[in-house]
Every structure is written in C-alpha cells, then in structure tokens.
C-alpha cells in the first residue's frame, strides 16, 4: 500500500482530477478578487466614516423618529452592481459548461464514444489545459450498493436489470481490464477492491438494493447517487496508476461511514 498518492496534484490532496482543479483555480481567483474588493471597501468605510467624539453629525437624510427618512439612492450605482455580477455569473456558467458536459457526457457518442468491442482499448487522453478526458470507447461495469457494502461486477449481464444501458455484449472483460478482489483497509476492515487499468475509461451502471447510497470515487472527485428505483451512471476515466478509496456519501444508516471499497488502478 505504499506510494498510493504520489501522483497527487497538490501535496496532501487525494483528489487527482485536473478538471476539478482547473475550475477551482479559476473560481478561487474570482473569489479573491471579489473578496479584496468587498472587504477593502468594508475596511475603508468602517474606519473612514466613523463618528468622532463630540462631533455634530450632519443629518442629510432627515432621520427623525416616526418619519420615513429621505431616500438615499443612486440608480446608476444600483444598476451597475446588478449588471456586473450578472455578467460575472454568465462567465462562470460559461466556463462550467464544458466540464459539465464532460462529467455527464452521453453514453452514445459523447466524449467517450461507444462501448468498446472485444479487445478494443479506450486509449483515453486528457487535455492538459482543461482536464477534460476523451476516449475512443468505454467499458461497462456494474456497481451495486446495499447496506453497508459495495459490490462490483465486471461482466454484468444478469437479467435483474435488463435495460438499454447494459446490453448483453457477448464477451467478457479480461481480468487485466477489470477485476474484483478484497483489500484490508485499516479502520474499515476487509473491503471489496475494484482493480481497473490506467488509460481505460469505464461507465459504471449503478443501482441500490435497499436505500439511497452514493459512491464517492475520491481520486476522480466524482460521485452519483445509487437509487433503488432506477439506474444511474457514473463515468470513471482512469488516467494513471493509483490506489484510493471509494466512500459512501449519501447517508444510509448505521454503518454508513464504514461503507467503503478500495480502487486500484494499474498500468
């Protein structure tokens, strides 16, 4: 279990998603700008326009008890700080758009193409400017949540969930591409382990057998609820080798905090 987070982008951080950090950095820059502007203004006015001892203050607004005071407004300023934040949020929405498409891309010809045929590799690539990953094709696997254990299936074709997302593809994924085992994690005990291959992209098709759960694939910084009423999906584009954890992040009862799994990505 050594060297499992050596590939982290930031010291002490387990999340590896460049997609996340590109947005994070942009948002932090704007937050700092707004913070400096707002707090600078607040700081200045808090100390500049203070009441001095013994000073006779002007009463420009005619404040008197029982009398609605004179209006203190400036249409230009008020419109300005309606329009400017509006423009900023349009910009922030715009830059969030492509990442949104990347995390929820279609399984039919989206960023990751269509399901791989036998022996085909995803050959995924990350755009180093945006963190968006594209692939030639993807492999389908199955994640099932139940109180309080995750289970994985590399070759889902049982008829429990017949539907259009998991076709009977007629071949099995090799254990090199997808394998299931167990791992002992300190504090969590013996937990299931999902082994995947770097450079390959996976589509997890998920359902719950009891209540709502949500796998948090920490290394990718993604999660999606697992519902008993319908199937949900989650993209797992694996770029490089790593060892990390999957936690449950939708409260599911007693042992919610210990419902976990290992995720091992090998070259």
């Amino acid at each position, binding site marked *: 279990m050594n060297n499992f987070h050596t590939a982290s982008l930031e010291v*002490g*951080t*387990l*999340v590896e998603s460049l997609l*996340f950090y590109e*947005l994070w950095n942009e*948002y932090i820059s704007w*937050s700092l700008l707004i*913070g400096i502007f*707002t707090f600078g*203004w*607040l700081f200045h006015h*808090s100390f500049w*326009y*203070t*009441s001095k001892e013994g000073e006779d203050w002007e009463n*420009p*607004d*005619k*404040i*008197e*008890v*029982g*009398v*609605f*005071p*004179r*209006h203190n*407004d400036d249409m230009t*300023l*008020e419109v300005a*700080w*309606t329009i400017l*934040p*509006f423009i*900023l*949020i349009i910009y922030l*929405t715009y830059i969030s758009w492509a*990442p*949104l498409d*990347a*995390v*929820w891309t279609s399984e039919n010809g989206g960023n990751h193409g269509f399901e791989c045929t036998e022996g085909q590799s995803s050959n995924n690539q990350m755009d180093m400017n945006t963190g968006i990953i594209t692939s030639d094709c993807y492999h389908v696997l199955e994640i099932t949540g139940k109180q309080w254990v995750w289970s994985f299936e590399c070759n889902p074709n049982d008829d429990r969930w017949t539907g259009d997302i998991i076709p009977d593809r007629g071949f099995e994924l090799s254990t090199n591409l997808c394998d299931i085992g167990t791992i002992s*994690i300190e504090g969590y005990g013996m937990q299931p382990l999902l082994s995947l291959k770097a450079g390959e992209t996976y589509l997890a098709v998920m359902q719950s057998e009891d*209540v*709502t759960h*949500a796998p*948090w694939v920490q290394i990718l910084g993604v*999660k999606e609820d697992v519902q008993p*009423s*319908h199937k949900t999906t989650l993209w797992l584009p694996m770029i490089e080798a790593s060892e*990390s*954890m999957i*936690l449950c*992040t939708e*409260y599911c*009862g*007693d042992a919610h*905090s210990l419902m*976990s799994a290992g995720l091992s990505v090998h070259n």
Partner: protein
Amino acid sequence: MNKTKIHARSIIVMSILLLAMAFSPLVSSFPTGISGVKDSGCNCHGATTSESVIPTIEGLPEVYNYSETYELTVGFTGGPSTIGNINLGGFHLWASEGELASNDATVQRYNPSEVGHTEIGNDQTSWTLIWTAPASDKNIEFILHTNSVNGNAGGGAGSSGDEWNRLTAKVSAPIEVLEQANPYVVLSTLIVISAILLVITVTYIFYRTNPDSFNWKTFEPWICEWLTSTDHKKVGTLYFLAGLFFLGVGGIMALMIRIQLSVPGNDFLTQDQYNQFFTLHGTTMIFLAAMPLINGFANWMVPLQIGAPDLALPRINAMSFWLQPVGALLIFTGVFSGTGADTGWTGYAPYIVSETAHVGTTMWVAGQIMLVASSTLTGVNFLTTIAVMRAPGMGWMQMPLFTWSILVANLMLFLSIPAFGVGLVQVYLDRVIGTAFYDAGSGGDPLLWSHLFWYFGHPEVYVVIVPAFGVISEVIATSARRTVFGYRSMVYAMAGIGVVSFIVYGHHMFTSGMSPTLRFVTMLTTMLVAVPTGIKIFNWLKTMHRGSLVYRTHTLWALGFLVTFTLGGISGMFFPSMAMDLHFHESYFVVAHFHYVLVGGTVFGFFSAIYYWFPKMTGRMLDERLGVLHFLTAFISYNGVFWPMHRLGVWGMARRHHTYFISTEEAMGSLPAEAAGWNMFISVSAFLFFFSNFLLIANMIKSVIRGKKAPADPWGGWSFEWMTSSPPPTPSFGHFNHGEWIDLPTLKDSNEEHIGNDPSPLVKWFQSLMVLDDENEEVNN
C-alpha cells in the same frame, strides 16, 4: 377548591405528562419491545433464567495482550440436559471488543462480536472458539447465554422444559482504561441542567420584580399570565427564550459531534449515536433554534414597526408558539434510549421509511408535522398583520426593512411548507400503516421525497437568512446615521431572492439521478441567486458611505455578518459548477458553506438584533464591554471552527461519517495526515465558540437585574418601535374604544413624493382579497 389550587394541580399534572412523554420511549421503543434481544442475543429457551443452569467460560485472561489470540471454551452444567438426549444445549457469546471467530463446525460467527452454536453443535454442552484481543486499550465485556436442552425439540414439544442462564465476564486492558461516560447520560444531564437553570432564572426574575411578594399566590397569576398570554410581546419573549434554549441544546450536540471527530478513528460516540446526534443537531438548529429566534423578534418588532396594537390574530399566534415545545418533545422522543431519529435533518427516502431507521423517526416526523402547522399559522398571521394593520401613512414602500424581510420570509414559508407537510404525512403513513409512497419495490418513488423536501428546504434556508438581512439593514443604517442605501432595490432584492428560492432547489439533487435537463436548469438559476444577494451587500456597504458610524456591539455584529456572510455567499458559488459539485456534494466543504451562511449569517444577524432591540424589549441597556468581548471571542473562535472545514472538504472528508481515517506511509485512509491536526483545531475552537456565547447570556441576566434604564430611542432609529416607551405598553399602540382602535400613530415622510396612501391598482386588488370591509361588519364588543 379555589382557582389557585386548580392552577397548581393543572401545572403539576401537565409537568408529569410532559416528563412521561419524554421518558416513555425508554420502555417502549426498543426495536423488539421491552425484553430486548441485544441483552440476550440468543433465542433463549424459556421466559426466565434458571439458577440450575451454570454457564462457564474458560481461557479468558484477566488482562489481555494487544492483538493476541485466545482459545475460549464456553459451556454449562446443570439443567435438564442429560447424555442420551437428541440435543443437549446451545450458546450465544457476545464480546464488546475484539473479534470472535469459530474454531470448528460446531460454532458459527454472526459478526465479529457475536458467535453461537451450529446445528451440529446442538449435541454438546461445551464449545471452543477463538477470540482476538483488540490492538488498543479497552475494558471488555463478555455476555454468554446457554440453553440446557431436554431434547424434546424433534418430538414436537419444541423447547418446553428447557432452561437457560446468563454469565457476564470482564477482561481488563494492559493499561487501565477509565470507564467512558455514556453520551446519552451526558446529553440528558446537560439538558436537564439547562432546564433547571432556566427555571431558576425565571423564578429569580419573578423574585426581582417584587421581592416582597415572593410567594405562590402572586407567582401563580404571574406564571399563568406568561403561559396563556396572547400579547405579541410576551409570546415573542417566549419564542426568544425557547430559541436560545434550543440553540444551547443544538450546541451541546455539536460539541459531542466535535469530541467524536477530534481524532481519527475515535469511539466516543458509536455510529448509531453519532447518526442521531447529527440528525437532532440539524433539526434542532433549523426548526427549534433559528425559526423561534426569528419569530421572537418578528413577534416583538413587526407590530411595533408598523404601529399596530398587536398581531392580527393574537390567539392563533399563541397557538403557533405552543405547538413548538410539544413538537420538540416528539422530535426528541427516543434519543435517550438510543432509538431517536437517525435520518439526517433531510430524512431522505427510502431510508426514512425503511425498517433500518430507528422507531424514533416516526415521532420525529410527527413532531415536524406540528412544526409545519405552527409555521403555516404564523405565516397567515404575519401576512395578514402586515397587509391590513399598517399605521396610517405607511404604504408598502414605507415599511421598515425588517418588516419587509419578515413579509418576504413568511410568504416563502407559507408557499413552500405545504410541500414538506405533504411529504411528512406520506412518510408517516408509510411508517405506521404500510402505505408505499416511498417504497420503490411497490412502485413508490424515493425521489419524490427529495423533490418535496427541497422544494421546501431551499426556501427554508432563505426563510432563516432573509430576516437577518432585515436586521442588518436596520442596524447598519441606524449605526451609520443614514437611510439605508437603495431602499427600493433592497426590497426588490429581497423579493427577488424570494422568487428565485423556488426555482433553485434542484441544486441539492445534482447527484440524485434526476433528469439532467432539470439539473442543468437549476444550475443556471442557482447562479442567479448571487445577483440579489450581491445587490444587498453592496447597498449595505454604500449605506456607510459619508455616514457617521457609531461603534456599538450591534454594529460590530453587523460588520462581522458582512464578512462571514460574504464568505459564505462566495463559497456557495462553487456548487452550481457541476464538475466541482460532484466532488463537494456531501463533503465538509458543504458543511463549511452552510455554517458560514446560517451561523455567520442568521445567528450573527440575530446576535446583532439582540444587542439592538434588547433595550427596547426589557427597558434595560446591555453592558457594552461584555458585548464587545462576546463579539471578539465568538467571532474569532467561530472562524476557527468553520474556516478549516473548507480545506477538509476539498481533501475528501465526508459529512455524516462518524469517524475518518488518515493516510500514513503504512496504511491507506481517505484523508491526508494533516487532516487530524485540523480536526483537533476545529474541535478546540468549537468549545471556545460555545462557551464564548455564555458572555451574552451573562450580559442579558446582568442587564435585566441591574442594567441602566433604556431611553425610548437609544440608537437614533426612525421607525415606530423607537417612538414608544422601553419596554412598550400593552396594547403597544393606541386604545380600543367602542369597537375601534384610536390614537394610532401616523407615519410622516420626508420625501416630497409620498406614495404611501396611493397604492397601485395591483396592490388595491391584492388588498381587496385580504381586507374585510370593516364598515359592513357588525362589531361585537
């Protein structure tokens, strides 16, 4: 029997009933009834223990070695078991720590802490098994149950004539461990102490009002007046006290949560206890602390600010209040016996209707239904009061901003809370009579709950923040000796927030699997919330421009609010960006964000309100030095609690997890090693923050007893509440004379164009819907 005796007896009977309600779950709400399987753990043969059966356990050390494996032999002698019977006996062993395992085919392991015999093992009177000691210091308890069997099971007589008995054994740790306090005992003790302090305070305040007549004869009408009053000021005070009391209770639970999280892998609370504590912490803080505090000030100030004698429906108002303590009792039902609600304040389906959720959840739902009723009645009352009881000369656009904020908040609440009520009733029916609204297996839809809950839940968080906006508008303007900048844009911004609040709730469900189109739309609308909130922040800052800021404690809290609320607002903008939200959802980043908004926003706003209006409410000034000390200690420790949580969330700390593990060179965890230090820092800061607020309590008590007398308008405000005396008379304004209110104040306006008495056609239509034509009503008085 005289009236006093009747009152005294009624109060005693009521108290007994309330106590019975609080403690009855102790005997009824174990999952399996009073007998309790956890104690016996086995399918014991016979109703009571039998002295003739003597269980034995061999191989246990007095003091164990870390992680060492021990072979134990359990068995029994005596009872009806004799050689030659078809079956001889059975056992069940439970160990509080370490791991039990089977040694051969006669023993089976149910889980790491429980083993029992197998079918083959039925033919024996002793069994061997393995126990691995824990790697740390624990006081360990073993409970062994054995059945002595007469062997007639196969012959159709079942277990008749069989006998059983129990043995308890203890093993000590290598290093002596102090017995750990039971968290429930800690919690209940603290709550009982708080309640006793409250009673002492009330009694002392009564004593101070007239030390010479400190006896039951004068106390009884005094306390009955408080318990039955419909005066908006008295009901407001009751709301305020209830809110402060539950703020303390919620705070105690927060401290227990922080003790648990202070170090990785802690076991101060079990998972089960932790789940109940965070559920009740959230529910208490939102519904039993924030809402009553807001209602306390709304009750007090709205009639005063609009120049009305009281609220429009005073008796409905008293009923709204009294529904709350009863609802609170139901919400807390079961917590002391370990079966309180454990669903999170959001109560997501289908967990909330599943059998794994505690039985206390049913009572939690019932209590929430009472709060829904209370809030609906409050909504009707305030909307009516503000619409029809404004003083002459006060148009909609001359109302003080705090009154506007209460109007907007109640409108939002009134329109959203029915959805929550419907959801709660459905859950209640699912839990008690077996309907299937949320059972996916029977065609129910668990996502329906999320929709109903968040359609209410998101407006609800604005319901608790918008009144704080009202307070800050009043305080900043008064302290800066200016009119609030852009009064009209302030009103439109609040109304805008009210409208937008209904179309953004989907952002709580970005990972739920609901329609991607809906998720996309709510991402856009969520971004929009920044616009009206931005307007308000900039307007407050501009209000200070060319003002003459007077530094009082309420001014400090208002400036502190501007800092923390802005930070909370900025962190809120990270969530609509989907690729970040998928990481942040259910992480500590969310916890940091909403505590910045709800504590740094709502609570700081209402701390400001306490310092601002306390002199008006009690006629006594608060101590400014204690106030400044309270601000400094609380503001700093508050930021120490919640600021580091942002980083923990980014690192990957999940909320609602009772513990966490850090990564080291040897072992994998979900968090980097630095997370442990930061969690300890947060826990220490949480204690400082909690105790810093006692400065406020001390200040209030000190001021009520010997505070300086307050003038009518200590801060120089313009609105009507500063026109009347401190404290105001009852009725607050005017006199009731021959079926009519006379001597009500009239609002003047220093603006040339006075639009107050000239409502627009839309407003006239709205008023025609709400106002009865008094001239055609027969006055019954």
